């Protein structure tokens, strides 16, 4: 687990990544992990929620930022707050529910009660405190919060650049990703979560790793009809990986599905024929049917945002570091907010097919990551290689961005460059 030691002003940890090679300690050094929690998870913007998870006043969810438990609330004024889940008195968590709706958080230990904005409302038997004890001085500790297109981030760092600046070129891709709301908006429908015995950066790398897909996910591909299997031929469609700056990157596997509103007259794939007909039978016009069906299939890219959130084809992938050798992953299913119910059912079924602890894809990913953690115990002097990649196809990535072919490890190098910058900061 993380220690609470204050980091030194400078650190040599950044030396562990050089160019396109990483040191094995990146995955296995507990002291390095503690330093990462301080230098990265306490210094940059960490994703905590999608706006739809806080649907209305007095809603909340619990999560964590680095090792620290936090409470994400929408107060009665509609403002989102991110609060440390720690009573100001003697530190008990004030909420252990995953999500819900409530207008007050009462510490179960001595009954200190807090408003959703963190204000300390009342202290039982306050006569026992010296005169001058002012509850206003003891709100739940709140973090800096900002939101972009429904994605809510928080940071401990008052000096972090604005969220918009931090996201930078990733914002365009968030906007493209949210087109799978089909104009209704995007809503969280549920989530799968699991832990694997491996370092968090192994998962971070995987989000822009198309190279593993046909190998690790052969059994998923084999379960698809021929038309869909061709769609998931991720290495064969002229895709690319693009460094978006600040550790963020995008891997485009299916270029035809970058902009879901493009070419809506294209034939509806066979696997969506039943859904399309059911939507027509419900009375939706053909334009709506096409827009909804296209949205249901999701996008053709993974947007990986440093350090903990990805917009991954059709879901959010959140990682939570637990220890140097344990990581929690949430695969958050999303759908259309107020769109046709049948469309959301189809989204759920597609999500279940690949994702989660019993999906056709995730268990094999988790096994692979565990194998990395087991293998890295060997060979102190052998580097972790993230040097793969040839040039991106002409006319794909934005001019000026570092980019490589779809199977390149460009996204991993981008993440590690940010890692290095922050660890040296």
């Amino acid at each position, binding site marked *: 687990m993380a220690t609470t030691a204050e980091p030194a002003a400078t650190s040599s940890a950044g030396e562990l990544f050089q160019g396109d090679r990483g040191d094995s300690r990146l995955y296995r050094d507990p002291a390095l992990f503690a330093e990462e929690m301080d230098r990265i998870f306490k210094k940059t913007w960490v994703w905590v929620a999608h706006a739809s998870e806080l649907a209305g006043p007095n809603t909340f969810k619990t999560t964590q930022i680095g090792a620290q438990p936090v409470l994400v609330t929408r107060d009665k004024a509609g403002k989102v707050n991110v609060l440390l889940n720690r009573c100001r008195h003697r530190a008990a968590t004030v909420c252990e529910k995953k999500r819900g709706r409530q207008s007050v958080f009462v510490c179960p230990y001595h009954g200190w009660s807090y408003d959703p904005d963190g204000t300390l409302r009342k202290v039982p038997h306050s006569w026992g405190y010296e005169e001058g004890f002012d509850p206003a001085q003891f709100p739940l500790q709140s973090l800096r919060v900002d939101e972009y297109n429904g994605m809510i981030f928080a940071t401990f760092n008052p000096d972090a650049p604005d969220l918009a600046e931090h996201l930078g070129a990733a914002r365009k891709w968030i906007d493209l990703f949210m087109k799978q709301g089909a104009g209704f908006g995007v809503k969280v429908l549920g989530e*799968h979560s699991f832990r694997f015995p491996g370092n968090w950066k192994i998962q971070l790398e995987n989000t822009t790793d198309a190279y593993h897909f046909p190998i690790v996910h*052969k059994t998923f591909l084999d379960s*698809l009809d021929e038309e869909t299997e061709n769609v998931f031929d991720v290495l064969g469609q002229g895709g690319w990986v693009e460094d978006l700056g600040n550790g963020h990157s995008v891997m485009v596997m299916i270029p035809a599905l970058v902009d879901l509103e493009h070419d809506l007259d294209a034939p509806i794939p066979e696997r969506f024929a039943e859904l399309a007909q059911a939507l027509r039978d419900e009375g939706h016009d053909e334009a709506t049917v096409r827009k909804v069906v296209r949205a249901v299939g999701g996008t053709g890219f993974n947007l990986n945002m440093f350090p903990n959130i990805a917009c991954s084809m059709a879901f959010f992938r959140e990682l939570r570091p637990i220890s140097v050798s344990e990581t929690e992953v949430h695969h958050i299913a999303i759908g259309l907010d107020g769109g046709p119910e049948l469309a959301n059912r189809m989204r759920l079924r597609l999500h279940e097919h690949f994702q989660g602890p019993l999906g056709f894809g995730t268990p094999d990913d*988790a096994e692979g990551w*565990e194998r990395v953690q087991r293998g890295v115990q060997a060979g102190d002097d052998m580097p972790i290689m993230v040097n793969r990649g040839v040039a991106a196809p002409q006319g794909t990535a934005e001019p000026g961005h570092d980019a490589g072919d779809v199977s390149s490890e460009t996204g991993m190098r981008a993440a590690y460059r940010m890692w290095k910058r922050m660890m040296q900061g």
Partner: protein
Amino acid sequence: MTTSIFAPTTATPRVAQVITLAEAQALIWQEAELLDTLGYKAWLDLWTAEGYYVIPTERGDGDPVVQLNLLYDDDAMRRMRVKRLTSGFAMASSPPARTVRTVSRFVVAASEPGLIAVRGAQILVEYKYDRTRIIAADVTYRIVATDDGLKLDQKVVTLINADDPLHGIGYLL
């Protein structure tokens, strides 16, 4: 390729025999042994064609068709899943963790000619990489009588920690 967008189906009993709890137990234990011994192809034959196998992500009585599940398998998905698990190409299942499970605490939830619904408790221990894990679940079974003997028609496995982080599971629950 995926299961239908429509709600789970069930089979209509074809044979009006009264199914005893002992008979239902025998089927449940046969299933448990087949799953522990990776007899997946034989396991497929325990099912009706209409049957659904469901593992929800939430405890409670929610409707699985409108909720996210860990697994929501009709006949076609069960067959594809078994193909995957037995292919040799799924890393998590080549080999999977070893498992030993017991199913007990049976209660008859419903009984009518040709049909019995049973609630039970399943305790499963898995072992891989020098590590054992325990997975506990409430399980409900709908079993129907057919010309070909008793068949599983619905199985819902509600994990004690359905709504908490699990781990990659390369076998069947």
